[in-house]
């Protein structure tokens, strides 16, 4: 590898290796995105189709309507809630995983990855069986007289947070695990030698050094939530509106591709801004 980078003019290899991926990305991502951008500027008339003009009214329709702004806000709030849940549950898990060795680690690792092994639709229907008003959880709790009436876990935001938290948890755990494993054990020994105790070591050494992993885990979970479509649709139904479900409604049920594209682009832009801010934040921390 070093010999290649030492001779930049001759190093065709990295490009050659990248070429298929770049080509695919260009064809399957950049191209459609450009098309989407173009469509978002078109007009639409119900029953007739798209009108090939250039205009910004799809965007103004979105931003000047408190109804749509509230959906954007609600989607970000949902993202924050799922991220908080994953962080809360994920950090201790990642901590345990980073300490485990050998077979124990392998088993734990497998268990953490398990949610990703089934398809979204199957997993979501599974959650519906567990969370329903007559589902397993409510049935069991009622049976043992722990609750008087069924808990409302389905068809609302609670169910969506639970189901999305489950599937996105591995991303959080694995990111944090990686950064925890990268902490040099001698830091801990040095801290102990200097008389620091558990909590102090945790807050002064573990947490700051695990921060890159926490940040990337949060970004993964957050964007995963924002782009989730099947889970909110099946678990919450039409009552909970998130960006992905209104994009689907506009594009598929109403066939209003221009407005659907404009909402999709707005979501993309919002995510990009958030990414840029996060990157800036973590870069600044690293340099300071």
């Amino acid at each position, binding site marked *: 590898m070093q010999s290649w980078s030492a001779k930049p003019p001759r190093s065709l*290899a990295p490009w050659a290796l990248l070429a298929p991926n770049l080509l695919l990305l260009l064809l399957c991502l950049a191209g459609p995105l450009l098309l989407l951008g173009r469509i978002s500027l078109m007009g639409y008339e119900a*029953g007739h189709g798209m009108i090939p003009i250039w205009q910004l009214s799809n965007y103004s329709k979105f931003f000047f309507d408190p*109804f749509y702004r509230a959906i954007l806000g609600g989607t970000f709030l949902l993202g924050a809630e799922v991220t908080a849940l994953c962080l809360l549950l994920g950090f201790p898990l990642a901590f345990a995983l980073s300490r485990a060795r050998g077979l124990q680690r392998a088993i734990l690792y497998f268990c953490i990855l398990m949610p990703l092994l089934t398809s979204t639709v199957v997993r979501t229907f599974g959650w519906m069986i567990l969370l329903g008003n007559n589902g397993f959880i409510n049935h069991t709790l009622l049976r043992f007289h722990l609750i008087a009436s069924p808990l409302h876990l389905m*068809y609302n935001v609670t169910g969506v947070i639970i189901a999305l938290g489950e599937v996105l948890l591995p991303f959080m755990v694995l990111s944090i695990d990686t950064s925890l494993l990268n902490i040099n054990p001698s830091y801990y020994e040095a801290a102990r030698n200097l008389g620091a105790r558990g909590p102090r070591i945790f807050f002064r050494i573990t947490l700051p050094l695990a921060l890159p992993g926490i940040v990337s885990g949060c970004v993964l979970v957050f964007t995963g939530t924002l782009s989730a479509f099947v889970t909110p649709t099946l678990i919450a139904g039409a009552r909970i*509106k998130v960006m992905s479900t209104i994009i689907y409604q506009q594009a*598929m*049920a109403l*066939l209003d*591709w221009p407005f659907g594209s404009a909402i999709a682009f707005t979501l993309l832009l919002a995510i990009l801004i958030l990414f840029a801010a996060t990157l800036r934040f973590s870069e600044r921390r690293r340099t300071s």
Partner: protein
Amino acid sequence: MKSSPARATTLLPAKGTLMTIRGFHLGQRFAAIFLALFVFALLPQRSHAQTELVVTDYGGSFEDGWRKSVVEPFERAHPDIKIKLVQKLVFESMALMRAQKDDVKIDVFMMDEVGAAQAAAEGLVQPISVKTVPHLAELYPAFRVPGDSFAKFMFDASVIAYNTQQVSPAPQSYKDFWNPNYSGRIAINNLDSATGLSFFLMLLKTEGATMDHTDPAFAAMKKLKPAIVTFPEQHAQLAQLFTQGDIVMAPWTSDRTLLLASKGIPIAFVIPKEGGIIQEGGLVIAKGTRKLQAAQLYVNFALSVEAQAANAKFTFLSPTNSKVVLDPQTAAKIPNGLNAIKALTHPDWKKANELRPQWIDRWNREVTQ
């Protein structure tokens, strides 16, 4: 082709030392292999002697019946044509038809009347005729469309589906959804689905509203809102809700209710006294298909007496072919025959289609919010 990447990887352990192989830079060699693989992937597969006809259907339990009643017998009758089934929901199909306009990949679409009429209006369909699809002549006149732009191969009725153990007496009217006994145990399909739209159109009638003046219907829905468990969009969701007992009553369709009942769930339907909407399924040939003849044969087969009788038996689709004679058991279950067809409401879909975006927008804000 297969051996080249393997040989390349066996050379890898010599990383850094063995940079050239037969005068090729390793990177160039890799690039060549990738390029070759890529080109190979893009090459069209060697064409079969068979024609492959790509058609859509609604998927799920519907597809099991469709395979048995149409696809398999058709392939037996026409060994030179192979059917490839792709699952698409109505509005997805519409989107696809638009997208593939210049390069048709899917030859025949299955859509409801609303979607098919919209596709025809946008000029995306290849019209048929009695000459190309002879069984068209056997349809009840009510199922022929202007210009024969597509073929109606089945219908079902919008109904009230209810749990036979929990709801007694059986519901009689759409007003029964407002019965406080069933509060918290009903679902109403979201307005952006076909079932939801049919319910809404019946609601207009029940509440004395019209398509142009929908206020009473929305007022009624606002009252009903707290009693509704959820607003499903897919048939599978309703099936799940009924199976789990989370709901005991919901607007649905005759065929889907019977399909669930056939799996042992205590469920039945009524066409309430206000009536029901007739919901028709159409087969649409995509304009510009390269397999026009095969597509016409397929559509013709789906309209045949045998295919429609089998569809009625397996998936409870009501026949549009007037010559179909159902076995007494099936005939007792599904809406069929001229009188049943006449009793169902046939709304002005064109108008409904144009006003739908407005209704959905209001529904989003006032009902599901």
